């Protein structure tokens, strides 16, 4: 009953604080709306929740006819080989086998244009990337595929700075293509060296185009590694979904900052002392504060879930998983709030709580991916992201949205729960030390 009175009183105080309401409740709604709209291009947004094709321009700097003629002449002159029945076609391999590949064609919508036009389209945002096949591309590729020689082929990919994720995908696809081609070329060299070693003479080269044709089937059937595009074969995350989660997991931390001030505020107002005289035990006071912070976080989460669902059309997935994860998130925030509150009470000033809100939350938000998707972050940041509570929550919420089961978020839920327990225990120890010293 007494704890309940403390909870009701604190909730009334918090909910009557307009500035706190703006920061903890309204600001995240505004930000998630703005960011999901503004950064739509950085995500694979589409209405059906599937993958929207990335518009790409292809620039051919080579002359296919001229390259082929030079190649035949070079072979006749240097190797004395007649390659008139040359059936290896690098252009067909790239456009037909690679870009025509079932998986790749789902991702990329390309058009072949001149270089100047391609640059214009990129600047205007009409396309997300340009793939430039260099001069003598056909010649160099034929040399690589049909002779013992290896020429360097530099395929360039230019990406739109505002569409980082789309650019990443195109780059990733091109890397997959060039890796596959490198494998084919290495295989060819091994074949030629084996033929020479076994004294097969010209017979080995007579069938090389047939062998190469068989090997290039690899390209047609290649499985492109696109894990950074779709999460293990599931649909992509939309910007509205990402930033609904990102802002929610970030702003819920403000409940801990707000709660972190409560104990010292009670002391400064003399109401803490009055409660002690009214025979309210310290565990009662701490329990009350813990539940208040938990409820504030829970209210924040509920409002943000509801807003993003109805206003931004975010489909939050499995309700039970969502409920468990949200409870664990609010629990960890409450623990963190008690920890900060006890330290603030002990320090007898609000510097720590202020620093938590103005610096620590921002750092945690950055590391946890609330500002930018972690996939776009350097490796080192991805590695340390686990230290931020919002990062742990963010990953789990995204998994729920993508349709993962509860077992897939169990580790995240456990981390949040354990963090909540540890923070609470630390807070209780610090608070009791201080109380035994002063009261």
């Amino acid at each position, binding site marked *: *009953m007494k704890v309940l009175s403390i909870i009701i*009183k604190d909730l009334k105080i918090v909910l*009557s*604080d307009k500035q706190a309401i703006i920061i903890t409740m309204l600001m995240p709604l505004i930000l998630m709306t703005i960011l999901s709209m503004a950064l739509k291009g950085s995500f694979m947004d589409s209405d059906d929740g599937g993958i929207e094709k990335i518009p790409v321009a292809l620039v051919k700097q080579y002359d296919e006819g001229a390259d082929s003629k030079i190649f035949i002449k070079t072979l006749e002159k240097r190797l004395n080989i007649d390659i008139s029945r040359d059936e290896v076609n690098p252009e067909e391999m790239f456009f037909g086998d690679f870009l025509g590949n079932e998986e790749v064609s789902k991702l990329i919508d390309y058009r072949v244009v001149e270089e100047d036009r391609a640059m214009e389209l990129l600047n205007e945002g009409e396309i997300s990337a340009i793939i430039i096949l260099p001069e003598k591309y056909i010649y160099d590729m034929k040399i690589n595929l049909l002779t013992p020689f290896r020429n360097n082929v530099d395929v360039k990919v230019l990406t739109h700075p505002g569409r980082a994720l789309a650019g990443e995908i195109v780059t990733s696809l091109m890397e997959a293509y060039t890796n596959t081609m490198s494998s084919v070329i290495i295989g060819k060299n091994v074949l030629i060296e084996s033929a020479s070693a076994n004294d097969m003479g010209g017979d080995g080269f007579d069938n090389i185009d047939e062998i190469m044709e068989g090997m290039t089937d690899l390209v047609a059937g290649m499985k492109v590694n696109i894990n950074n595009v779709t999460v293990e074969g599931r649909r992509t995350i939309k910007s509205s979904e990402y930033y609904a989660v990102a802002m929610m997991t970030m702003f819920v931390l403000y409940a801990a900052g707000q709660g972190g001030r409560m104990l010292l505020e009670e002391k400064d*107002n*003399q109401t803490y002392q*009055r409660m002690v*005289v*009214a*025979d309210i035990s310290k565990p009662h006071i701490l329990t009350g504060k813990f539940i208040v912070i938990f409820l504030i976080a829970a209210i924040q989460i509920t409002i943000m879930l509801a807003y993003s669902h109805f206003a931004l059309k975010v489909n939050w997935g499995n309700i039970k998983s969502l409920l468990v994860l949200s409870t664990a998130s609010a629990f960890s925030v409450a623990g963190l709030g008690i920890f900060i509150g006890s330290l603030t009470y002990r320090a007898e000033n609000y510097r720590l709580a202020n620093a938590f809100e103005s610096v620590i939350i921002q750092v945690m938000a950055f590391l946890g991916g609330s500002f930018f998707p972690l996939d776009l972050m350097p490796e080192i940041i991805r590695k340390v992201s686990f230290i931020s509570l919002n990062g742990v929550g963010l990953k789990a919420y995204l998994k729920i949205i993508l349709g993962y089961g509860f077992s897939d978020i169990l580790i995240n839920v456990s981390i949040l729960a354990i963090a909540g327990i540890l923070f609470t225990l630390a807070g209780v120890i610090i608070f009791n030390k201080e109380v035994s010293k002063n009261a």
Partner: protein
Amino acid sequence: MLKVENLYKNFGNIAAVAGISFEVKRGEVFGLLGPNGAGKSTTISIISTLLPPSRGQIFFEGESIFENSRNLRQKLGIVPQDIALYPTLTGYENLRFWGNLYGLKGAELKKRINEVAEIIGLKERLKDKVEKYSGGMKRRLNIGAALLHKPDLLIMDEPTVGIDPQSRSHILETVLKLNAQGMTIIYTTHYMEEAEELCSRICIMDEGKIIASGTKQELVELVKERTRINIKLDNISDNMPQVFKEITGVLDAAILDDTVTLFGENGDILLAEIISKVLEEKSKIQSIDIHKPDLEAVFLHLTGKALRD
């Protein structure tokens, strides 16, 4: 009812309370009178179980409050020197919260809130947020929050500091009414007039010690020959008390704000010489009051300084 024995409280090397002993009897208004920093609030904090003493013992109804604080806490109402309320809640919400903490609920709580609102004269303003109250109204609500559970012992720590005369008068009347209803009250103040008006017995504290105690009459007996003369001047120099002490018959002199307070054995006769000294010092007299012996005189007599220095 409450017995304080040889109480000490040190903060580092500073002795805030230095070996005080006194007893509060059931049904009385017991005054702790002294200037700021005398150790009154520290004493109150120890009695309220908010601070542990460095040494000493306190018994409430015969039982040590350090061994069993529950009995005292249930029967104690505390009115802290600062306003211990929630400014963004209404007066009613504040009273309901503190009533809840004392185990009151439902119709009983509602009834007590109404009764207390009547006592503190805030019935019409309970729906307003406390932050909109005047200083005096906040002080009255601060008292009200301590009355909800009908405490046997009410401790009031400087409850009239910084408020308007009307609210002050209301608070003093309230204290007398509560005492008339049987409530025992410990009242700390540095206002001599309040202690004189309210308290049946008074302890005068200075620098952590009790320098005198007794009823007002007993204390005034200590300086019964003395007359207090307050001279309000438009220009006071620091050496003014010394100048007045040179007059034969002036026993003590001290400055408080723009007033010099003198104590002499026969005020009427001293007056002419005092005026002459003021003129010599090229100052102008704005007013002169002559008082019969009082607690101010006692304090000056015992400590050599004015009560509100």
